[in-house]
């Protein structure tokens, strides 16, 4: 397949070191210093974002605070401030909407813009548009914020281009330079190719990105044992295969536990809190759900999970909690829990109530609606089940990694 000769119409924007840079924007005294934003600032806490200065020292996302401070003892460690980051995301969203109505956030710090329907912008040089966006981010949102921008004929290569130079990069991958760029990349530099996929490719005699691009489709299909091989061939040839937006299929909430908890009586209030949080979001979007899923990851590296279909689509947190609690009894946790995650699936938008012979659904619905109205007026968890209040300290506001679905909710709530 020849490389796509169409003009580059896709722009990928990536806010560099998002959470940490935003903290440096808010506090000028932190600028130029190694800063880390962590889930917990205690030594065992996980680093969620490292500033550009911290990254240069080798401090990375996913490290513990202890390890980060072992590399640099004066590392400034801050707790995360989700609303700060969400507001910057919203400001970015508003800014990019001035250039095209065909844009999508890929995560809290990434946007993809399709300029296909704006030929004047494309022909007038996409790099010039990108330069203007960079400038406007500095003047309208914050002068310390930098973005890396990638331009290409498809989404995948635009993302790769955005990752070529960080921070503050601006690169294009197109028909005239792709061979040169591919020759400088390793297979694992490609998003979606980690060690396991690289090993599959190696098994078919593919050791470099150029090998990967030049490999015939049959060989790629054999490497991936599926049509995925064809998709990879199209991606690397500059054709679009990733312009699919998946609808929401579930709601879920999870928590990482700092304390060593393994007794059901300790975990139950946390489960109740998570379940109520999840159900509040479910009902807020007008859904019911007919399935529940529980996942428990242990500190010893093992994990357990199970999903269950419910008798009918439910809306009441109490029904979900009951089902989730039964799953927790089945799991019978005996060693300290690292992560607890509950989610519901089988979403329906039905307005009518399924009446039940043995309980009054109309009364339940009215009670739940009254509770939701109070929480909407006075703030989350103003009213809730008594058991969920025991989990309040453990379940805090967090931003999901790559959680673009979550972004829809707060966009609606901050108008």
């Amino acid at each position: 397949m020849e490389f796509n000769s169409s003009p580059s119409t896709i722009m990928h924007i990536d806010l560099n070191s998002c959470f940490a840079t935003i903290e440096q924007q808010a506090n000028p005294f932190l600028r130029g210093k190694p800063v880390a934003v962590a889930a917990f600032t205690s030594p065992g806490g996980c680093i969620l974002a490292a500033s550009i200065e911290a990254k240069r020292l080798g401090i990375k996302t996913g490290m513990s605070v202890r390890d980060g401070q072992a590399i640099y003892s004066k590392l400034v460690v801050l707790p995360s401030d989700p609303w700060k980051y969400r507001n910057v995301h919203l400001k970015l969203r508003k800014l990019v909407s001035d250039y095209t109505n065909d844009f999508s956030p890929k995560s809290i710090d990434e946007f993809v813009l399709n300029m296909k329907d704006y030929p004047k912008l494309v022909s007038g040089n996409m790099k010039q548009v990108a330069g203007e966006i960079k400038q406007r981010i500095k003047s309208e949102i914050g002068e310390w914020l930098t973005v890396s921008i990638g331009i290409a004929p498809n989404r995948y290569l635009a993302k790769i281009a955005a990752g070529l130079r960080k921070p503050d990069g601006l690169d294009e991958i197109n028909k005239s330079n792709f061979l040169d760029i591919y020759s400088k990349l390793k297979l694992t530099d490609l998003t979606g190719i980690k060690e396991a996929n690289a090993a599959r490719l190696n098994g078919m005699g593919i050791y470099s990105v150029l090998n990967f691009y030049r490999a015939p489709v049959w060989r790629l299909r054999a490497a991936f044992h599926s049509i995925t091989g064809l998709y990879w061939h199209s991606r690397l040839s500059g054709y679009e295969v990733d312009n699919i937006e998946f609808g929401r299929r579930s709601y879920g909430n999870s928590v990482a536990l700092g304390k060593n908890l393994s007794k059901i009586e300790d975990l139950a209030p946390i489960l109740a809190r998570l379940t109520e949080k999840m159900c509040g979001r479910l009902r807020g979007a007008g859904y019911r759900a007919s399935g529940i899923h529980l996942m428990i990851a242990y500190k010893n590296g093992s994990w357990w999970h199970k999903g269950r279909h419910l008798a009918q689509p439910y809306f009441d947190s109490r029904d979900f909690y009951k089902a989730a609690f039964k799953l927790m009894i089945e799991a019978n946790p005996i060693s300290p829990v690292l992560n607890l995650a509950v989610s519901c699936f089988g979403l329906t938008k039905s307005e009518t109530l399924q009446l039940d012979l043995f309980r009054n659904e109309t009364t339940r619905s009215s009670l739940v609606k009254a509770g939701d109205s109070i929480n909407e007026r006075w703030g989350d968890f103003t009213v809730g089940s008594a058991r969920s209040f025991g989990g309040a300290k453990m379940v805090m506001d967090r931003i999901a990694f790559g959680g673009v679905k979550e972004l829809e909710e707060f966009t609606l709530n901050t108008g």
Partner: protein
Amino acid sequence: MKIDERITVGMSDSPKWVKWKDRIHKIEKVGLHHSFREGRVLYHIFSVSTKTLCMKLRLDTETLNWKLLEISDGI
């Protein structure tokens, strides 16, 4: 450092000065302004800095009260 104390703020487009513990602190820079809702109440948060301190200020738009939430010197 968490403070959580009521303060007086001089405002003109953005905070210009903060009166805290009977001292006036002149604001040199607004690093970031963001907002969020807790229930129906809209809060504005200003991350501002004086010559020596960074302050996190909160305006409650229902009561129009200001609070100094945190101070930091970046060390």
